[in-house]
């Protein structure tokens, strides 16, 4: 009897630390939660979420940022934005960047990746070289190209002079300013997309390609019917980043053209900067911000929903 109760007591003894540990686990779990989560939540709410909400609120006012916003003008700011020709141009320029990314940058990146995903001497060095422009600051890249495009001292000008032609001032003409920016966009970002494709190709099952080759498929057929279908997820991803990147393009525009001449080369963000921020038109600028926000979120959600359902 006593022996049995001893045994029970012993067993309880043995369980006690576990139970205690479990209880204290729940306590420390709560403590951890209360200690670890709030910094992130607060920072994020304060500097990311609230400003978006405030942008929606401020966009109803005619306000220069000083004192409190008092002059409520309803949706007028949105009307001003949509009525201005500059914003229309900026929107079209953003679309143009997307089109060029898809028709020139993406095939270029994929072609390079197909070559450089193979192992050969110099492949890694070339990958790094092509990725380098992506790491450089947009500001530095923009300045380098504003030198290249410079009508007097630039590399382009000296090429023209070598052929005895007058050098064009690409950045100073409303006809060519956007072309000049598009070239830099491709130069700067193709390496990033190439790396995405290289990562995908290296994770690909080589046996599929080998099998197709053994079955007598030509190099082109393997590419067309085996490799590219396997790359679809990466292609979708690359398109996603091209669009998102276009929607936030700003730093590159400033050193090249500042959106000019005559608002010909603005993106939506540089339009927001030039017409909202630098003139402290808080209501107007906020309205542009809200429009941009709606475009970004709508795009992200519908793209994920329609094209990336499985990922």
């Amino acid at each position: 009897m006593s022996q049995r109760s001893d045994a029970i007591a012993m067993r309880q003894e043995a369980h006690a630390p576990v139970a205690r540990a479990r209880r204290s686990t729940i306590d420390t779990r709560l403590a951890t939660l209360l200690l670890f989560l709030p910094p992130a939540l607060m920072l994020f709410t304060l500097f990311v979420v609230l400003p978006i909400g405030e942008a929606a609120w401020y966009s109803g006012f005619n306000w220069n940022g000083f004192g409190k916003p008092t002059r409520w003008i309803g949706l007028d700011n949105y009307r001003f934005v949509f009525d201005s020709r500059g914003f229309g141009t900026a929107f079209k320029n953003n679309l143009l960047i997307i089109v060029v990314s898809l028709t020139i940058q993406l095939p270029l990146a994929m072609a390079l990746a197909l070559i450089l995903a193979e192992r050969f001497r110099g492949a890694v060095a070339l990958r790094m070289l092509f990725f380098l422009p992506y790491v450089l600051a947009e500001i530095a890249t923009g300045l380098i190209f504003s030198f290249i495009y410079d009508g007097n001292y630039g590399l382009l000008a000296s090429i023209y002079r070598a052929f005895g032609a007058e050098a064009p001032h690409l950045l100073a003409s409303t006809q060519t300013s956007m072309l000049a920016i598009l070239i830099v966009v491709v130069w700067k970002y193709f390496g990033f997309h190439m790396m995405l494709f290289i990562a995908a190709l290296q994770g690909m099952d080589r046996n599929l390609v080998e099998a197709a080759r053994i079955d007598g498929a030509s190099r082109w057929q393997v590419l067309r019917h085996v490799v590219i279908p396997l790359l679809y997820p990466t292609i979708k991803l690359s398109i996603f980043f091209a669009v998102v990147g276009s929607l936030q393009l700003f730093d590159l525009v400033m050193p090249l053209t500042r959106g000019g001449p005559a608002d010909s080369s603005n993106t939506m963000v540089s339009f927001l900067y030039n017409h909202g921020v630098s003139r402290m038109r808080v209501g107007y600028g906020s309205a542009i911000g809200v429009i941009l926000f709606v475009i970004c979120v709508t795009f992200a959600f519908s793209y994920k929903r329609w094209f990336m359902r499985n990922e």
Partner: protein
Amino acid sequence: MSDALAPRRPLDLVPLYKAVFLGLVALVVIVPLLATVLGGFKSLGELRTNPFGLPETWEWENYTGILLSQRYWQLLWNSLVIAALTVVLTLIVASMAAFVFAHIHFFGSSMLLSYLTMGLLFPAATAILPLFIKVRDLGLLDSYLGVALPQVAFSLAMSILLLRRFFRDLPHELLEAALVDGCSYIDFFRHVTLPLSRPILATVGTITFVHSWNSYLLPLVMLNSDSMYPWPLGIMIYQGEFSAEWHLILAFITLTILPTFLLFTLAQKHIVAGLTAGAVKG
């Protein structure tokens, strides 16, 4: 031997095409960069007459003049302080949150995670004016923190996702054993999770650093005295002052991208992994 047995095929030109293609692209990438570095060694006159070649006389003064100026070092220092603040704060705040999301199940955890990852959907530019007013009202205008804190807030989403995935992949038995032994979550985080997570912390730190080091819009809006400017703002001002003296501007550009270049060669593994893996996950 195989030559004799195999049917004679037409000469394979594909490798040649590939090589030419790679060579052309490499040229297009290298020439602008090289012209910038070399251009910094030329005189303004030579820039015009000899744009592509090596300088006839190496004008070291272009570079030494900038290197000996206080201005250059001040710009780099400001960039470094802002980037360091951003990286340290991001790593601390994001790893703590990621730890909770990786190991602690609680009501609403997935909702809170989706809330935080909303930050991936839109750029900081969308709310830049209210953000400016917020930072002004907090009295942080024209301070390092006024730039760093919003940068941290905007880098949280991606950092938390990357860290959480890594934390979750650490062997789960470790945590269970530690908890049974009476170790608290916080001790486990400090003494087990963080030391084991050095690779991902390095990756997240490097991406955050590169983004902050290169960033332009936030400092442009938040800072208004020259002495606080990071280098992308400083170089734009420099270009405004020396507008036609391209040899000086090119030297200045070269010296400001040099740190990025060095970091890239030293930490290329982390940079490539972070910028692409982060992208894939995002």
